[in-house]
Every structure is written in structure tokens, then in C-alpha cells.
């Protein structure tokens, strides 16, 4: 056992480091504090363009679409190295990771040649329009209607939890074209210009006060049939292609962790001595550290499999469910340690980093839900990892418009 790169990995890493050190600034050396969102997007477009000009834009894609066919391990190495730099990559995560591969798999050559290069070069930013108010954990339970009208389709309905919809140029969209057939059968998939008439975007304010997501309303939005991806009624299969490429893209998931707690407990007192000396505090730290370390070491195991060219096991499926709970627990506990003062929000006077604990406490409930709730993830572990049967499905094979949807 060791943590070393293979010679090939080391050489790839060196190449990445060379490009990055020549073209980007290390984290912590720059100050973007009062950057507006527009400025951030502009900076992201420039960085994507620079990467595309130097062959770093979409590593895992095949060469024909501007990629370099990188291995999963190379992707990880690039991520590790790019992560050390102040590199604005967020706006392209969904486009490159989910929308691009779907377009590549299903669109006409004409559309592929038109759209994909602009995504790679950073000219176009893409979003994904799947979730709906009625389609949360039950992803296929969606109601946004598509109706054929000549060479077009007319879209009416509402999508939700769309990251970046307000600055995106294009989106992928799944709709219900036939409510009279079973839930998974009547879906049809499109891509569309987000500036199309009838598309209205409203930000969602989260309980943390931030707005990382949007609602997107469709009123008689027209999409040419040529922008359909996959067969009419074959939208669920296209969704699965997209979701296979899903990475966790639920906004800001960074939060408080054990090192922050260690710092806090060494600087705050409990019963007249440093909280670090308190056994109850130590026990909690030990247990959370076991989770933190366990997740990190699990990632190492996954990476080892990738590095050997193997397909990793299902180990990493536990990451979000453990991480989100830990973040909520540590956030809450840190506030408790700060006692009555723990709920005071004061950015000018925050030597104990209380805003990190508070922000995590308010952000973690979202993390426990977005991208699969704790409950859905446990189902997934039980079914896909342990091979246990699905729960009873009363909606199976029933026409969508006859499935019980609850009180109106």
C-alpha cells in the first residue's frame, strides 16, 4: 500500500501542474470578495476558453468533440490539481458532465457540431431541467407537458431546482408527452434555447438565505422537433444516460468539518477549561473524525480501483449520507459550544469562525435532501449495493394519469 502515482499518472499530473501554474493563481493568493455573479460568470467563461485552447476543457470526452479521452483516474488528478487553484469551474459542471454527453449520444450530427464546440469553448453554459415540484424522490413523476404541433413541440409546466438557469444559454429538458401510458413510458426529452419565448426564471431562496437554484416556468414554449433527443416516449432512457453521468451538483457542499471543530474547542472554554479537555467533547470529535477519515479512506479505495483500471465498488455511495449528517451535527454542536453567543451573526468579529458553523447548520438540511435524500440514498445502498428488493410499487404499469397523486 502506498499513495504514490503510477509513472503515467505522475507524468499526467506534472503536465496538469505545468499548465495550471502558468495560467492560474493558487487559492488563498487572490481576493474575489466583492465579485458580482456576472463578473464570476465572465471569469468562468474565460477560464473555460483558456482550458479549451490548451486541451484541458473536457478531459473525459472523446477527442472528436474536443476532449482528450482521459481515464477516470486522470480526471481525478486534474480535479485535485485544478482544485488547488482559484479556478471558476462551477457553471460548466452540469453542461460538461451531464448535458454534453447526452447531446453527444442522441443529437443529430448537425446539432452536435453546432452545440458541443460552443460548450467546450465556454461560449455556451448549459443547465438541466428535470426536477419538478411533484417529482422529487419520485423523479419520473413529472407533469410538464409537451404536445406536438407540426414541426414543433409546445411545452407547458414548471421545473424546479435548476442551478444557474438565469445565466444559462441552453438546457436539457424532460417532459411528459403522453399521460395515458405508464409513468416511465410517456416521457420525451429535448434540448432548448433558454432564451426561448415563454421561459420564465425565478430564483428560489433557501433557508440559508442563499439562492443557488431556480424555478423555471414554461408557457407555450416552442421547441423544434429536431431538438428532440431520443424517441418520442423514450425520454426516460435518455434521462438514465444523463444521470449515469451525474456528479453531485447541488451547489455549495463545502462545510464545517473536524479540523474546524478542533480549532474551536482549543479556543473556547467549558466548565472553566479548554473545551478540548472535556471528555464529552472528545468523544464526539473522535466519532466524527472516524466518519471524516472513513470517507477519505473510502475515496482512496475508489481511486485505487480506478488507478488499476478497475471499476470501483459501490463504496462511495455512502459519501453524501454520512457527510451531510456530520456537517449538520458539527454545525449544531459548534453553536452549542458557543452557548448563548452561538446564534449571533457577526462577520466583523468572528475570531471563532462561528459563521462557518452557522452556515453549515443552515446548509446541511439542504444537503441531506438535494441530489437524493438520506432516505433515497439508503434505499439505493440497500438495493444496488446489498441487492435487496425494491419496496412494493403500486404505480407500476398504471397509466400516469391514473396514479394517485394525493389531495389536490
Amino acid at each position: 500500500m502506498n499513495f504514490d502515482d503510477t509513472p503515467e499518472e505522475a507524468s499526467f499530473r506534472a503536465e496538469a501542474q505545468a499548465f495550471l501554474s502558468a495560467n492560474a493563481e493558487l487559492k488563498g493568493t487572490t481576493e474575489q470578495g466583492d465579485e458580482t455573479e456576472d463578473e464570476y460568470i465572465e471569469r468562468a467563461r474565460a477560464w473555460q476558453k483558456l482550458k479549451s485552447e490548451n486541451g484541458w476543457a473536457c478531459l473525459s470526452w472523446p477527442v472528436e468533440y474536443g476532449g482528450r479521452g482521459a481515464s477516470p483516474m486522470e480526471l481525478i488528478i486534474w480535479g485535485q490539481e485544478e482544485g488547488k487553484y482559484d479556478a471558476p469551474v462551477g457553471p460548466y459542471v452540469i453542461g460538461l458532465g451531464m448535458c454534453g454527453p447526452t447531446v453527444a449520444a442522441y443529437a443529430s450530427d448537425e446539432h452536435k457540431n453546432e452545440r458541443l464546440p460552443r460548450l467546450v469553448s465556454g461560449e455556451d453554459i448549459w443547465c438541466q431541467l428535470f426536477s419538478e415540484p411533484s417529482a422529487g424522490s419520485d423523479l419520473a413523476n413529472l407533469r410538464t407537458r409537451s404536445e406536438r404541433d407540426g414541426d414543433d413541440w409546445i411545452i407547458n409546466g414548471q421545473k424546479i431546482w435548476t442551478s444557474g438557469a438565469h445565466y444559462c444559454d441552453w438546457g436539457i429538458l424532460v417532459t411528459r408527452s403522453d399521460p395515458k401510458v405508464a409513468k416511465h413510458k410517456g416521457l420525451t426529452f429535448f434540448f432548448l434555447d433558454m432564451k426561448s419565448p415563454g421561459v420564465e426564471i425565478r430564483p428560489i431562496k433557501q433557508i440559508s438565505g442563499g439562492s443557488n437554484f431556480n424555478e423555471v416556468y414554461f408557457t407555450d414554449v416552442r421547441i423544434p422537433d429536431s431538438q428532440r433527443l431520443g424517441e418520442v416516449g423514450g425520454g426516460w432512457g435518455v434521462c438514465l444516460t444523463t444521470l449515469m453521468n451525474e456528479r453531485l451538483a447541488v451547489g455549495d457542499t463545502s462545510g464545517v468539518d473536524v479540523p474546524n471543530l478542533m480549532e474551536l474547542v482549543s479556543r473556547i472554554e467549558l466548565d472553566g477549561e479548554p473545551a478540548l479537555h472535556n471528555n464529552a467533547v472528545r468523544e464526539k470529535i473522535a466519532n466524527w473524525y472516524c466518519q471524516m477519515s472513513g470517507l477519505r479512506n473510502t475515496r482512496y479505495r475508489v481511486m485505487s480501483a480506478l488507478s488499476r483500471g478497475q471499476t470501483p465498488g459501490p463504496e462511495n455511495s455512502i459519501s453524501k449520507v454520512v457527510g451531510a449528517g456530520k456537517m449538520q451535527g458539527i454545525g449544531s454542536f459548534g453553536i452549542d459550544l458557543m452557548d448563548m453567543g452561538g446564534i449571533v451573526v457577526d462577520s466583523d468579529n468572528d475570531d471563532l469562525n462561528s459563521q462557518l458553523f452557522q452556515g453549515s447548520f443552515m446548509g446541511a438540511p439542504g444537503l441531506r435532501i438535494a441530489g437524493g435524500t438520506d432516505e433515497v440514498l439508503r434505499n439505493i445502498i440497500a438495493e444496488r449495493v446489498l441487492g435487496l428488493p425494491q419496496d412494493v410499487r403500486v404505480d407500476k404499469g398504471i397509466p400516469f394519469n391514473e396514479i394517485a397523486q394525493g389531495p389536490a
Partner: protein
Amino acid sequence: MNFEFSEEQNLLRDQAQRFLRDKCPLETVRTVLDSMTLSHDAALWQGMIDLGWTGVSIPERYGGVGLGYLELCVIAEELGRSLAPTPFASSVYLATEALLLFGSDAQKENYLPRLAAGEIVGTYAMAEGRGAVAANKLKTSFSDGALSGDKLPVPDGDIADIAIVLAASKAGPVMCIVDLNSSGIERTVLETMDPTRSQASICFDRAPAALLGEAGNGWEQSQELLSRAAVLFAFEQCGGAQAALDMAKDYALERYAFGRSIASFQAIKHKLADMYIATTLARSNSYYGAWALSTDAPELPLAAATARVSSTQAFNECASENIQTHGGMGFTWEFNCHLYYRRAKSLAVNLGGLHRWQDQLVTALEQSTAAEA
């Protein structure tokens, strides 16, 4: 065996519920939350005064209603359920109680009638920044009738007229009472995680103050005061926990996924069952606290800590799992889940964090074990 509220007390509860449903729907709470300037809902507060609630624990000769602590517990639970944005807890559970416990006749005559009538609002200023206060580390000091130092956060400190202040003195810790509108006082509203209960910092610079209770006895007085207030806070927390549980249940019954109510999935059923268990244990413990408070029982320190610990945990759990039950909607600003989540946290730290109460519980348990032996 008579371990329930009486019929009269339950009538008071009905009245309180009707009043609060009318005057304090969650929109009222949201108005204070969303406002940058409101510290509380003034109409609601006035209504509570008009109902005599501010005088429930104050004897009639000081202008109060002269009911008792069980009645106050009933009101506290309903205030907790409705998330009422008022200074009631600070003024009634703490300032009024401190005066009743430790005030001289003159102090009682001076302040209690005005507190009962809602003419003035009181509070208790204990914390001095982040971290728990300790008897031997108080930085605020009292000498020669003057108080100096910084207290923060002080619940409702921005609107309170008087404050009971825990301070150091030559004789040891003392409690003193201060008119917050007098000289040498600067107050700043603080931004907090729960804007529906306001907090302020108060800087005292040789502000005129009077001793409350015995010189050197301030820490013990504070412990006694906190134990009594803990029972009332526990009822607020039980009310909040119950409301969060009810909200989760209602949503789970209405929300459908995979063709069935999500309330029919065991993951949700068992989550709600656990919330019910936590709330029931907390409520039963709070009843015991109410009994101890209302009878001045020697069990009070143990009963209060037990009520406080279990209610804090129950409200935390219910508020957090109510969000989880709501799924995506639960973490939007638009839904009301976060009101409970915020309040659960602010009540959890308001009288000192969980650790303090777990420790008091075991200390009291040791003493009761020793007494039995």
C-alpha cells in the same frame, strides 16, 4: 394521582390557542423574520398584556393576576407552539421571576406592577460573548452602585426597559437591576440566526444599578433563576416540537410519491414515530418540572434539568426532521420549516447550552442519590 393540568388550566390553554391562532399565525412570525427592523410583533404583545399573561405569576398585591406556575406553563407551551415573536420569555420567565425571588419589598413594589401591566419589559443579561459564562470569569463588574462591562447577547435587550444583570463585585458575583434608559448605556441590535426573538448587546459604562438579592450570592441566585426558567423554556420547546411534528405529519399525509402517500413509507413513519417519542418524553418530563416549580419541591434542580435536556433534544430533532420530511420544499425560505429550526436552536442556547444542563442533571442526581442513601 393527579399528574395532569386541571380543567381550568385546560380552559386557559383553549383560550390561549384561540388567541394565538387568531393573532399569531405563522405569517405574523414571518413578518418579524423578514423585517429588518421589527424586534417583535407589537399588536400580539399588547394582546398578551391585555389578557393578563404578563401578570400570571405575579401576586395580586403587586398588580398581577396571581394565578400560578402551572398556568404559566400552559401559556409557555402555546407560545412555543405558535413561535410567538414577543419578549415574553425574557420579561416574564426571567426578569419578573428574578424580582419575585430576590427583590426587596421596595423593588417589588417599584417594578412588578409595571411588569404585570406590560408598561415595562424586562430581561436577564448573563452572557458575555461566545462561550458559556463562568462564576469566576465575569467581566462585567458592579461597584458603588455602578455597572460597567459588555453583555451580549441579551435576549430582547434592544427593547427591554430594565435588565437583571449578572456581574462580578468585590463580594463575589452579584445580580443587579438596571434601568436601561438611564445614562451610561449603549445598546446595539444584533443579527442572529433567529430574528423572531431579538437580541442585543448592551455596553454599560458606569451605569447606575442596584443590588438585587444578596451581595456575593449572584451565581447561586442565577442558578436558581435558570432552573425555574428552564421549566418554562421546556414548555416552549415542547410546544415547538409538537408543532413541527404536526407540520411534518400533515405534509407527509398530503405528499404523494410512487403513487402513495409518503406517510405510508416506513422511513417516514418511523421518523415521525421517533419524533413523537421524543416529544412525549419531553412533555412528560416537563410536567414533572411544572409540578416541582409549582410546589417549590426540592426536586426542582433535577426536574428542571431533565425537562430542559429532553425538550431541547426533542425540539432539535423535530425541527430538523420536519425539514427532512418536506424534502426539497423543506429547505426553501418560502416554507415555514426553517422558522422552527431557527427557534429550536435559539431556545437551545438561550439559557446556556445542552452541556450545562446535562451536567446540572447529573449533579442533582448525585445529590438526590446521596440524600436517599
